[in-house]
């Protein structure tokens, strides 16, 4: 029966090729536009670390001066507070990190030195954020603050310097110091780049990683955001470290709610203690935000992309209205045929099914066309948006969603016209003939 329905539907689609193309085209464009915007939204709002997103917390301490006007505490810590929290070891895992620029001297002499972005971090960074290793491992915990000159390379940098070979154990000159490579990452690009939303929400991961303990001996400075509340120090590096300039991101891993609560208590008591020595002039406002909360807090999903989704769905609405109109026109034109079939004893349900199969065919064709358009649209978006490659590619979920949406939209568009035509009295259309 279904095959028979299909064959009749196909005949009908072919009878009015222009009308059919118009219907398929309208559905395809509607689906193409919606899928494009939904994909961007879906990838922007993705959870980069689903199994741990409610165990990792960004730490905020309100160390600002009285004059600060914004309602939220800074998103980074200053060196003093970061060191105090680090040495307290109150979390299951913790990392203090920032980015800096280092001159890399390639081992191959024919390559010129170049700047690389290094993340200065603690060894917990890697297990906390589930960073995959291709070779080697993170540096030892003991090297976090020992000043050991060890480095973990990104997959890309290892490719560039060593042609992708296992470089663990080799040495690498960074600035005027020689480092030992302890690990090489597998390709890793969390989207969004949740662990550092200060600089670029969808940026590349860093070229290499070195221990936080090198900050003082190498006098490293952040190449990311630095916000000062009050003096930036007396012009010396020590002065800068002791100033109220915030430039260090601090993350903790707290597996349970109880851990979170007790960490919060610890933060509050730390700040109370600091208040006694004249710091933290503002009312207590320390925060722990998990990954999901952190992404929202930092407005990772842009308002533009949300507005585009809203407009695209309205657009799909227009395409559906268009299709309903065209299907209705088409079905009504075939009224005599319906009259004939009804007069010969076809039941309404049979005819109804016939029409739904027909709009289903149009829907599937429209969905496939829509996918093609979405693929084109996303190609356009990749070229338009900075870091578009990360947030504009079709995945299977969106392909399935697009096809389902197309089918649902076309059937929804077909129900009313089908219902209208099967309700007509057969006699009216037989009379003329």
């Amino acid at each position, binding site marked *: 029966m279904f095959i028979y329905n299909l064959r009749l539907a196909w005949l009908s689609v072919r009878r009015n090729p222009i*009308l059919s193309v118009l219907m398929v085209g309208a559905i395809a464009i509607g689906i193409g536009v919606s899928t494009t915007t939904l994909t961007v939204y879906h990838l922007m709002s993705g959870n980069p670390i689903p199994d741990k997103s409610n165990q990792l917390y960004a730490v905020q301490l309100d160390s600002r001066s009285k004059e600060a006007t914004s309602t939220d505490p800074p998103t980074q810590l200053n060196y003093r507070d970061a060191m105090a929290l680090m040495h307290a070891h109150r979390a299951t895992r913790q990392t203090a990190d920032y980015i800096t620029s280092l001159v890399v001297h390639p081992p191959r002499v024919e390559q010129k030195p170049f700047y690389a972005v290094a993340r200065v971090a603690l060894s917990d960074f890697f297990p906390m954020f589930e960073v995959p290793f291709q070779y080697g491992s993170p540096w030892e915990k003991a090297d976090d603050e020992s000043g050991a000159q060890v480095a973990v390379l990104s997959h890309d940098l290892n490719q560039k310097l060593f042609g992708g070979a296992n470089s663990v154990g080799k040495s690498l000159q960074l600035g*005027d110091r020689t480092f030992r490579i302890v690990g090489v990452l597998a390709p890793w690009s969390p989207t969004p780049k949740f662990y550092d939303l200060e600089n670029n929400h969808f940026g590349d991961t860093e070229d290499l990683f070195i221990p936080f303990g090198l900050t003082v001996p190498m006098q490293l400075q952040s190449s990311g955001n630095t916000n000062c509340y009050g*003096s930036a120090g007396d012009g010396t590096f020590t002065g800068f470290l002791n100033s109220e300039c915030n430039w260090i991101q601090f993350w903790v891993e707290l597996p349970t709610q109880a851990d979170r609560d007790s960490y919060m208590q610890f933060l509050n008591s730390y700040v109370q203690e600091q208040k006694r020595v004249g710091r933290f002039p503002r009312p207590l406002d320390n925060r722990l935000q998990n990954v999901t909360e952190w992404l929202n807090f930092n407005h990772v999903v842009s*308002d*533009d992309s949300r507005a585009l989704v*809203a407009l695209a769905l309205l*657009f799909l609405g*227009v395409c559906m209205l*268009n299709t309903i109109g065209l299907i209705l*026109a088409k079905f009504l034109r075939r009224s005599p045929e319906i009259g004939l079939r009804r007069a010969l004893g076809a039941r309404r349900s049979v005819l109804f099914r016939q029409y739904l199969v027909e709009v289903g065919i149009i829907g599937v064709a429209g969905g496939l066309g829509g996918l093609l358009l979405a693929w084109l649209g996303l190609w356009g978006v990749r070229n338009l948006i900075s870091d578009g490659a990360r947030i504009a590619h079709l995945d299977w979920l969106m392909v399935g969603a697009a096809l389902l949406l197309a089918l649902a939209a076309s059937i929804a568009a077909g129900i009313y016209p089908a219902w209208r035509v099967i309700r007509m009295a057969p006699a009216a259309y037989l009379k003329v003939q």
Partner: protein
Amino acid sequence: MALHPILSATLRNKTGAILIALQIAITLAIVCNAVFIINERLDQIGRPTGMDVDNIFVIQSVGFSPKYNPADARRMDMDMLRAMPGVVDAAPISDIPLSGGGWGDALATKPGEGVSEQSGNIFTVDTHGLNAFGLKLVAGRNFRPDEILEEDSQSTDFPKVVIVTRAMADKLFPNGDALGKTVYEGAGGRHAATIIGIVERMQGAWVHWTGLERSVLAPIVYNQSFTRYIVRTEPGRRDAVMQAARQKLDTSNPGRFIQKVRSLADYRAKSYADDTAMATMLGVVTALILTITAFGIVGLASFSVNQRIKQIGTRRALGARRRDIVRYFMIENWMITSIGVVVGSALAVGVNFWLVNLFSIEPLTWYYIPVAILALWVLGLLAVMGPALRAARVPPAIATRTV
């Protein structure tokens, strides 16, 4: 021609008319809001920068050899760049305007703790800065060579003189008498500096910041291994000079490397990339929706023409001219479109209200609605033209046929 018979004929097949009217209504709502957002973004991108953006490029130089002497290298580089054919001027700078990264600082008009401050965006330059950026000095004077402060990277010293933009001057001194006044920088206002000049305009680093035009020029050059140079060329020669300068600098000093030689226009385009993307996507959506709606009108009008072939033939046989038939379909469509645009206007305001509330988008300017109404009327009439002309070609003889 009386509207009444057309209206009553339309009402006999309400569904098609309602569908088209609804489609036009939503189209109007989308088009109004989309075009409004597009214009808003394009206006932002097109704001005057105060600089000679199209003829400027930026170079980064990084010394890596232990023997590298930043001060000597800078002097040599500057002499070389300024002497190059096609170069108008060049200067060492700290941060790049329009790039998204810079030195935000606050200036006060009084020293002391807790006084009100105005945030601004500081750019360091030497005496060639004004000319290299192509800024227009509207009051006061440029820096003198003896006013340039040489600092290492750790230093937090501040120069004794500054040049500010008109926007910064007015923010600090609303009475318009900023020239010659003293401003205070740093904690407790420990550095005092005199405003010696005012430039008409200079956009800062963060293009989406409300204080974009509150820039401050400070006469500082840094003696550090990482430096940036800005080079302004004669009109039209930027790309050629950019390449030549890169080659010259690449080979002039073996103790450093050159990176990120990019035009200022490029930095600006990157800063506005998401706005450009939004405008482009909305442009595509607008074009597509107008096309779809036009095709929808064509489809339904064709259908209604086909259904009324006999009536058309009868009217023709009774003496209606071709143009009467065309007019009939045009008026019918115009009535349907009009209902659509009335409903659509309300919908456009509703959609905009919703966008404003949820997505921090500006409220719609009123005149977008009448313009969009006009556009849809024209679109509707153009779309119905084809089917209407086809209807006009129906021969009167058809009225006499039975089937």
